[in-house]
């Protein structure tokens, strides 16, 4: 397998872009990534998207986005893996470079949710569950998180309010991120009073769905010209693992086996232990998933992630900083694009371009995106090339 490098990144701020279409959102991120890459051109596009066929009545997305961005004629693929679609698209693009199929590949994650108003968005997202046996019972993604959280609180004797440490941390980290949806710190009192969505999941436990697009360009070593201006970041590990789709079909619904296995496989590929990274961008689509991701990756004993977070272990100056630019909760959750935003944010850290939230001497990052309660888990290890 050949080495794979990130040679360009581009994003639009996550938020409600009423005036911007699906295709233009994607184009802004794609062109920004290509602009950084000093003339490198992709031979293939990998699109991560979940909802366009339902909410925008637009399928055949790869052809549309290639056409609209002026990349006429290149190969195009759409990758759908629920909320992990963007991360799965990156994994596919990684394989395309590593295998020698192409020299440069562009990945774009894009989601347009504001063209649709009302409970239809929740129903469309619930289609990522088992439609016959979960969605049909009136269970949404937040309902799934509620089932997981209730059992977690019961099994480990954790207080419901304890999980408020995660949204509080995310909001604090987003204050200095110009591309974040919410750049305002929140207080624990506000968390305690928030209205219930899927009890015990409250409004602050759930990352807000929003429009967004993020792109990264991947290139082989051979494609990169001498004297390339951007600091180089290498993808040294890439793994995609699936679990039983329906929560009720798992032996232990709190195990998050796919999350654990994808960390193990990505780190093995990179030749490192998980503890040898400087930051962890994880999937906090719901507070409880942040806790379970930390536990599955081995950064907290089972049932104790919130307690360690309370002690500051996962803050910017902690032992293992997480979601350094605000994560899903405060940067916003652009669903099929979310996995690409995470990778882009890790690249900013590794290049030393993360501004006020820069992690000193960041050399390696672990990045993980989950679909729902880890029915698909995609994990990447990124490394700064010195």
């Amino acid at each position: 397998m050949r080495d794979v490098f990130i040679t360009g990144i581009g994003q639009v701020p996550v938020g409600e872009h009423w005036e911007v279409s699906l295709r233009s959102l994607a184009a802004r991120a794609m062109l920004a990534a290509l602009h950084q890459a000093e003339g490198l051109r992709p031979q293939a596009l990998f699109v991560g998207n979940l909802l366009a066929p339902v909410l925008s009545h637009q399928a055949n997305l790869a052809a549309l986005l290639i056409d609209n961005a002026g990349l006429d004629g290149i190969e195009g693929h759409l990758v759908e893996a629920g909320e992990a679609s963007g991360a799965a698209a990156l994994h596919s693009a990684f394989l395309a470079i590593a295998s020698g199929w192409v020299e440069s590949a562009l990945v774009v994650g894009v989601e347009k949710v504001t063209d649709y108003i009302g409970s239809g968005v929740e129903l469309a997202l619930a289609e990522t569950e088992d439609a016959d046996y979960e969605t049909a019972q009136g269970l949404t993604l937040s309902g799934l998180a509620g089932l997981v959280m209730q059992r977690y609180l019961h099994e480990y004797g954790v207080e419901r309010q304890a999980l408020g440490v995660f949204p509080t941390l995310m909001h604090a980290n987003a204050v200095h991120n110009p591309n974040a949806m919410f750049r305002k710190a929140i207080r624990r009192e506000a968390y305690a009073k928030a209205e219930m969505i899927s009890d015990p999941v409250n409004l602050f436990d759930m990352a807000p769905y929003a429009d967004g697009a993020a792109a990264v360009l991947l290139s082989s070593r051979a494609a990169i010209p001498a004297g390339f201006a951007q600091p180089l970041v290498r993808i040294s590990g890439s793994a995609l693992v699936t679990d039983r789709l329906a929560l009720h079909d798992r032996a232990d619904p709190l195990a998050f086996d796919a999350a654990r296995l994808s960390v193990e496989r990505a780190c093995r590929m990179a030749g490192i232990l998980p503890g040898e990274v400087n930051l962890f961008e994880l999937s906090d689509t719901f507070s409880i998933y942040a806790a379970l991701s930390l536990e599955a990756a081995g950064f907290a004993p089972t049932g104790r992630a919130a307690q360690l977070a309370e002690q500051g272990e996962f803050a910017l100056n902690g032992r293992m900083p997480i979601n350094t630019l605000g994560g899903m909760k405060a940067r916003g959750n652009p669903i099929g694009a979310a996995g690409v935003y995470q990778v882009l944010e890790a690249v900013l850290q590794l290049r030393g371009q993360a501004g006020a939230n820069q992690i000193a001497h960041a050399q390696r990052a672990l990045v993980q995106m989950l679909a729902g309660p880890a029915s698909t888990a995609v994990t990447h290890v990124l490394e700064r090339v010195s």
Partner: protein
Amino acid sequence: MEVPRHWRLKQQRYALVGEVCPHCEGKIFPPRDVCPHCGGEAKTPYTFSGKGTVYSYTIMHDAPAGYDENVPYTVALVKLEEGPMVTAQLTDLDEQGVQIGMPVEMVTRRIRQDGDERGLLVYGYKFRPMIAGAR
């Protein structure tokens, strides 16, 4: 909800019919094409008793389209006495509410209403607290 799809699932929705694996005797619900216990082909129907206990639950305040009429409603993971777990709404709850470990039994109720256009009403399984002395 499409009519052929609901018709195809009527055995499961009305009678909790799953499968028993002819190779390892494992009980399976919902039905699958391959036994999750032994990897053999699964195809022998098996009717579950409809009795179980609550493994976890959530109270839905934000319903998706088609489920608004019962808000707030409770969805649970029910551990059936034969082994498998099933996702289902709870019904007939009194002021005592729900606890993990509570015994429940299957009943048939309206699950979903598709609005005025075609007026399809979808019925299927829900679970209610076990009535004392019922077993």
